[in-house]
């Protein structure tokens, strides 16, 4: 059991959680993820690490509840326990394995979308601590959904953009990136983390400018330890597994269309389950699954 030290609601639908997990905190690096499971009946949920404190043995996670399992997680409070918390999993970001002198020569831009801002923070902070500067574009649909802006500002040069223009610049992250380039910014390394559709279009943009781009893939996973093969992707024409080969890959080689199709596989079942969970005893059968007798 893993103790929750803090839990709070962040911008919009997002939640932040500090969890006591000394083994994970001792060895994790930016880019890696953990598997979280609530209760005996819960799913194994992969969540990318937002921050860590090695001395105190604490892991910070930011996530957006979307289904039954993540919603159940969001109902836990400070002092509660998470049943299972496994990690760190996946490969650390390539940046952490690049000599610092080389990193200092790179012009790095992070493109963060939605809840993907959290794992970007982990990497930007790591670079900052190692004396490497970076730019971060935080994209959100609207002002209320912009997250971690203040924290991010302490570790990087931040540009916020909202789709509806309610805060910061106006438009999608791709437009912001192109604007920054037009304003004279030069980049040779991009790390993009967010919804798959956003990563796809960011990659199309960076390809135009010849900027090497790394994306963090979040396909469906079950065990997350290199056993089940659910998280397979096609990268550069080959089958790769996000849980052990990734989650970060060369974005210009990822088959996003395929990845997005595969991601929808359980959409109907998840939706039905979520509805049944939300409505509980009062469930009226709108899920189409139970025949309306519950």
């Amino acid at each position, binding site marked *: 059991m893993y103790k929750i030290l803090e839990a709070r609601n962040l911008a919009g639908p997002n939640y932040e959680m500090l969890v006591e997990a000394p083994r994970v905190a001792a060895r994790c690096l930016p880019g890696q993820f953990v598997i979280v499971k609530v209760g005996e*009946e819960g799913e194994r949920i992969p969540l990318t690490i937002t921050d860590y404190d090695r001395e105190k043995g604490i892991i910070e996670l930011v996530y957006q509840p979307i289904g039954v399992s993540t919603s159940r997680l969001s109902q836990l409070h400070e002092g509660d326990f998470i049943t299972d918390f496994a990690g760190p999993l996946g490969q650390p970001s390539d940046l952490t394995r690049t000599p610092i002198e080389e990193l200092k020569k790179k012009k790095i831009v992070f493109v963060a979308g939605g809840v993907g801002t959290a794992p970007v923070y982990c990497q930007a902070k790591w670079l900052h601590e190692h004396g490497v500067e970076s730019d971060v574009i935080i994209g959100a649909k609207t002002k209320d959904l912009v997250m971690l802006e203040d924290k991010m500002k302490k570790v990087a040069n931040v540009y916020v953009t909202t789709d509806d223009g309610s805060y910061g610049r106006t438009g999608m992250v791709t437009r912001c990136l192109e604007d920054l380039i037009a304003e004279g910014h030069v980049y040779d390394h991009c790390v993009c983390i967010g919804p798959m559709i956003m990563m796809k279009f960011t990659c199309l943009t960076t390809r135009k400018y010849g900027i090497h781009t790394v994306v963090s893939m979040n396909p469906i996973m079950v065990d997350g*330890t290199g056993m*089940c*093969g659910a998280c397979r992707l096609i990268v550069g024409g080959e089958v790769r597994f996000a849980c*052990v080969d990734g989650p970060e890959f060369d974005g210009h080689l990822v088959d996003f269309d395929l990845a997005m199709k595969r991601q929808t*596989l359980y959409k109907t079942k998840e939706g039905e389950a979520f509805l049944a969970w939300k409505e509980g005893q009062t469930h009226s059968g709108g899920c189409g699954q139970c025949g309306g007798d519950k």
Partner: protein
Amino acid sequence: MAEIKGLKRVPVREQDPKVRATNFDEVCLGYSEEEAVEEAGRCLHCKNPKCVQGCPVSISIPEFIAALKLKDFDKAYDVISESSSLPAVCGRVCPQETQCEGQCIRGIKGDAVSIGKLERFVADWAKANDRHMKCYRGRQGHKVAVIGSGPSGLTCAGDLAKQGYDVTIFEALHKAGGVLVYGIPEFRLPKDKIVAKEVENVKCLGVKIETNVIIGRSVTIEDLLTKEGFDAVYIGSGAGLPMFMNIPGEQAKGVFSANEFLTRNNLMKAYRDDYDTPIECGKKVVVVGGGNVAMDAARTALRLGAEVHVVYRRSEAELPARKEEVHHAKEEGIQFDLLTNPVEILTDDKDNVTGMKVIRMELGEPDASGRRRPVPVEGSEFEIECDTVIMALGTRPNPLISSTTDGLETNRKKCIVADEKGETSLPGVFAGGDAVTGAATVILAMGAGKTAAKSIDEYIQKKYAAQ
């Protein structure tokens, strides 16, 4: 008359195929006390028992059967537990026909003694009567780390604990048991009734189990040997990532590896409404492959309500699965499309599986495995309609440990290299089971765990004698 009767084994009761095809309860119901004693009476108590040679963990088979015949179940259990930490598991999932029972003299003229079912009876009797293996507590104090809580790790840990070592098992998943929990289905190996109890038994020997620890990521082998003070490490991390065929359509929605399908259903209990993990099992399922894993996936899909076909490229004689599994699968209504090989998975415009294009095969000259090589019959392609495809083609080793342990030798297939004593290229590091051999059986993994336990004991004794 008595002579003729002795040729046949006492039949074991099973759930009716029509009934069991709709539930996940155990198929085989096991012997009653009377049946077990009667079957035990068929053992000839050979002076030179071939059955023991056929057993990878060398259980003193005639001895336990003799005790069983005298209804001394306590003694029968003690005899078995001297050699095996997981008798209730082995009695259910060992391929006895190629091991102990395959060597039985009774089998030359008539049926071999039903050794597996007798072992199962004794183990189940022990559970029902709350008989545990003798408990020991770390009297030596030397620490051994075991990676993986599958059959190999549990055996190695159990044997070392019996000798007084302070053993900790590190398990990557949230539940102990390895393939016994995530791979083999409930209807063949009940999880709460059998696996959890066997794990408890090993814990009762003083073994600690730490779940959610991924060796290579949460902690490295080097750290275990230095910072955490372990004298030796046993790697029993099991098989790894599933293999695919690399045919068109294999990434479509509705194509699963058997590992994923079985993990969802067994470890995550997706077949039960009260568990959150979903499973997508269509109305018509094609399972590709002919091993035990293919049978498990096929019979699971059947129980989830699908019509199931097994597509296998060789003929029935070459099916690598246990005979009992094939027999059970057929009884339950699974159809076998033999000498058939997938060419392409067909999809609709939304990338959902709609069918499979296959080709007829014929058997040619024997290949490296000694089995006749299947060759495609030109122009014999045809289509099978289906909405789900499960690939059960075997696995490749998991790279987590080998890629994070400097100096640990692996072979061409990326399996960890270990000699017949279980020693790897690193001093103090031992390995066995699927991580070394590639996907094999529960009992072979247990045999390797047992051998390694002996080697680890020798290694540690020598290490401290030299000091």
